[in-house]
Structures are given as structure tokens and as C-alpha cells.
């Protein structure tokens, strides 16, 4: 394929309008087709690991189970947002518009879990 290694969104970091980009489309250098393929493979691999550890009773019973699932989920979330939603390449204002409410959302979830006693901080011995 002649252009499979080109950036699907405008070539090798070229300004977007030079590669037939729509004017007014606030895109910068976007991932290449190869990067999209690798992102999909990584997302699939992480999902496979998540489901795999779900079926290991000794790991499910360990303290590592929930943190490892949360970390893998957060990594998948970040990869999709950065590469598929192009937040890594887009304007800072878009990042602020997304991460601001996201932080509020996560803090709200954690606060409510503390409030309703699902998680607690144990002080002292």
C-alpha cells in the first residue's frame, strides 16, 4: 500500500491544509495508520489480560486484583483519548475542556464512595 505509512490525517507532520485537510479542522500531526493499528492491538491485548485475570481465583482474591484492573482500564481510557480522539495532538483548550470535567467526575465518584462507606482510610495500627 502506497500510503499505509503516511499519516492518515495529513501526512508526516505536515500542516493539515497541505495534505488536503479541511480548512477549519483544528488538527495537527495525527497518528499514522501503523500507529492506529498498534493502538488497536494494545487495546485488545489489555482487554484480554483483564478478562484473563478475572478467571484466576487466586489473583481475584489478592489485593492486587482491583488496582491492576483499574490501572489497565485507565491506560485503555488514556490511549483512546490521546490517539483516537487526538487529544495528544489537538489544542490545549480541548484538553482543558475534557480533563477539567473528567477530574471533577472522578473526584465526585471517589467522594461519594467515601461518603457511603465503600472505601475508607484506616488511621493508626
Amino acid at each position, binding site marked *: 500500500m502506497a500510503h499505509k505509512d503516511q499519516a492518515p*490525517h495529513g501526512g508526516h507532520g505536515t500542516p493539515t491544509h497541505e495534505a488536503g485537510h479541511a480548512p477549519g479542522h483544528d488538527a495537527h500531526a495525527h497518528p499514522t495508520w501503523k500507529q492506529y493499528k498498534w493502538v488497536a492491538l494494545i487495546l485488545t491485548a489489555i482487554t484480554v489480560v*483483564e*478478562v484473563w485475570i478475572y478467571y484466576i481465583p487466586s489473583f481475584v482474591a489478592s489485593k492486587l486484583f482491583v488496582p491492576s484492573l483499574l490501572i489497565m482500564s485507565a491506560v485503555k481510557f488514556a490511549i483512546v483519548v490521546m490517539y483516537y480522539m487526538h487529544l495528544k495532538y489537538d489544542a490545549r483548550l480541548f484538553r482543558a*475542556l475534557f480533563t477539567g470535567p473528567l477530574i471533577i467526575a472522578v473526584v465526585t465518584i471517589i467522594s461519594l464512595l467515601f461518603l457511603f462507606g465503600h472505601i475508607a482510610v484506616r488511621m493508626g495500627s
Partner: protein
Amino acid sequence: MASPALDHIEAGPHGHHYTTTGLDSRKIAIWAFIGSECMLFASLISTYLIYKGRSVVGPFPHEACNPPACATALKPILNIPVTSASTFVLLMSSLAMVLALAAVENRNLPKHTTGDRILGSSKLWLWATCILGATFLAFQAYEFTSFVHEGLTIRTNLFGSSFFTLTGFHGAHVTAGVIWLGTLLAIDYKRGLQPSDAINVDIAALYWHFVDVVWIAIFTLVYLIQ
């Protein structure tokens, strides 16, 4: 009647409207909308987590329920293999969506090989995204139907209420996304999506990927964490 000079100020040298931020207002709007959607889903997810493990009667998500707690013996209701498959389908739909956007943006590039033509076919990738989104919805319909047959409805217990509300809202978002993609496909068949339409496809793609990241969170928090 606007003068040519005013037209230039309003439309800009590249044909798009100037904004005080220098960014396209439609893209700012979709990111603001996605930000607000983050908080909507945070409220639904936190409600589910707060009620988790507080159901008095079964069926339960991860635990079996035996008499006398339940009238009959009930297995854990969540079907992880089916949900894993639907998660994979939604992840692949996101890949198809970025390829659809790339195909629209690069429509004017020359296509020399079969591979180029496949990668550059916006119709193909939009169809793929639509079909994968519809497949995810079919998985969800199967899951909801099997739950109802096993005795779990939105009125059965706290788990049922919070689970159906959360996943139902997500399913409604996926449905809206499939309809949105369908309208883009209709435009593509009618007059062909041009690079100047890329912003419209990009906005739809952002919505679609957001629906995907919400599912990433739901899959872990609802299905995998016991």
C-alpha cells in the same frame, strides 16, 4: 449585504470562521458536551457503585443466590464472555471510525493500489463502524433479554435498577451514535464526503470514541470488579 471585506473577516483566508480562540467553535462545543457527559456518566457510575452489594434479593452480579435468600437457586448473572466479545466489538468500531475520518480527510490523495483504495474508502469504514455499533447493541439486547428471563428487571433489586439505568443510558448513546453515522453515510452516498466535511466527521468520531471510553470504564467497574 456584507461587503467583500467583511466576508473575508467572517470567513477567514481558508474559508472558516474566525473565533476569539482561533479554534473551530463546533469542535469546542463537542468537547464541552463530552465534558458534561463525563459528569452524567460519573453520576450513573457512582450510583451503581454506591448500591453495589446492597441488594436484599437476587439475582446478584457476581455471587450465586440460594434458598432461602432466593426462591430458587440463581447463578451469578453477569456473562463475562459475552460482554468481553461486545467490548472487543466496540474497540474495533473505534478503529474503523478513525479510518473513516482519515479516508474523508485524504479523499483527494491519489490511490494507486487496492490497499490505498480500501484505506481510502470512507463508505467502507463508516459502514464498518455502523455495523460494529449495531452488533454491540445486539449483544446488549441479548444480555438484557437473558437477564429478564433469569428474573432480573429494573424493579427487582438495587443492582437491577442501577445496572439497567447505567448500561441503558450507554446503549442509548450508542444508538444515537449509530443514527449519526447513518446520516453521514447517507451524505456520503448522496454527494460524497469531501475533505471540507472532515470537521463534521471528526465531531461524530469524537462522540463515538467517547461512547467507547465510557464503556471501557463500565466494563471494568461493573463487570470485572467483584
